């Protein structure tokens, strides 16, 4: 049986148990239950490994992207954002969660509002680092271009700011993301770090998306 199929056999209740454990929110009296699950179930082991990989990956991204705020982020527990239904922050609160608005951090995240897996929660941390989140309650997030650009304007250093009109704008900001349709997982966008550099777009799968990916070929 492939790794993907193995993971698909994990019951939802067991998946939620693993998520609680990963978030550090598991009641002490259920710890033995998780340990037994991980000892006996190959599916649980595979899913647990995915969760750890995703967590590790995202922590690295958040730390690297937020170098000036690295010390602050390093002390932040990923579980802080676990279990929350993430919503779009009102504009007047957009920069409040961090003491000093980052000026050199252009990290934008779109996160699926429902059915967030572990990866989605971890992405929340990264998004919170720049105090910008967009999420929708429905299973599909569709951010119209005008809507996105209005919101992004509050975040310094983003590549999603409204198009400039002057000459040379293309050199300064060659890539605009106009729309996103997220069926699962999430997306983070890093503007180029230097002129002529690439815009980096991270695509994250939640657990269900990983299971539905059909293997890794």
């Amino acid at each position: 049986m492939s790794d993907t199929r193995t993971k698909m056999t994990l019951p939802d209740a067991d998946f939620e148990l693993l998520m609680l454990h990963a978030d550090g929110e598991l009641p002490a009296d259920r710890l033995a239950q998780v340990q037994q699950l991980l000892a006996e179930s190959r599916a649980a082991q595979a899913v647990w490994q995915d969760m750890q990989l995703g967590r590790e990956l995202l922590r690295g991204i958040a730390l690297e992207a937020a170098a000036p705020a690295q010390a602050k982020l390093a002390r932040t527990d990923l579980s802080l954002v676990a279990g929350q239904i993430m919503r779009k922050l009102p504009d007047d609160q957009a920069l409040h969660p961090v003491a000093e608005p980052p000026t050199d951090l252009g990290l934008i995240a779109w996160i699926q509002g429902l059915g967030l897996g572990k990866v989605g929660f971890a992405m929340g941390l990264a998004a919170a680092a720049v105090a910008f989140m967009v999420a929708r309650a429905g299973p599909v997030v569709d951010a119209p271009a005008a809507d996105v650009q209005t919101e992004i304007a509050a975040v310094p250093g983003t590549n999603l700011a409204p198009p400039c009109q002057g000459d040379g704008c293309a050199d300064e900001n060659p890539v605009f993301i106009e729309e996103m349709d997220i069926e699962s997982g999430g997306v983070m966008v890093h503007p180029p770090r230097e002129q002529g550099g690439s815009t980096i777009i991270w695509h994250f799968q939640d657990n269900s998306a990983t299971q539905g990916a059909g293997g890794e070929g």
Partner: protein
Amino acid sequence: MSAMMCKKQLVRALVPAVLLLAAVAEVAAQTPPVPTQVVERASFEVRVIEATKGAPMVDPKLADLERELRSLHRDYARFALLKTDTQSLTTGARGAVRLPNGDLIIQFLGLSADKVQRVRHRVEMPGMNATVRAVAPGGRTLDVLQLGDRLVIVATTVKR
């Protein structure tokens, strides 16, 4: 029948034909010309790269991206070029690039009408999400997704 009579008959016969031709010419002159549809075309150079953990190593074919790849993530230091594919697309056309987890779809949507010309296109990640991008020629995106313990990176350079 005199020659004069023949000439008159000929003129009478020709008058309706001349009038008909004049009418046709007038209608043709008033009909706006059918616009010739401009076929826009853009090309997308797609490089599929695999990143793994381990001792640092960058495929020499990725020299132009080395600096960016190395700074992508601290744990992934080995980069290998899996394939290069160039998609030349007309407006509305879709091209597929095979990735390890399915097909990446690029659809060319047309050129933007802004002062700075941009190539609008839609990128669909296999089984995940889709984004609509407006990229100035020469602009480049790196799409990164994690597959198991490796990263698959899609470097797309937009050309005109």
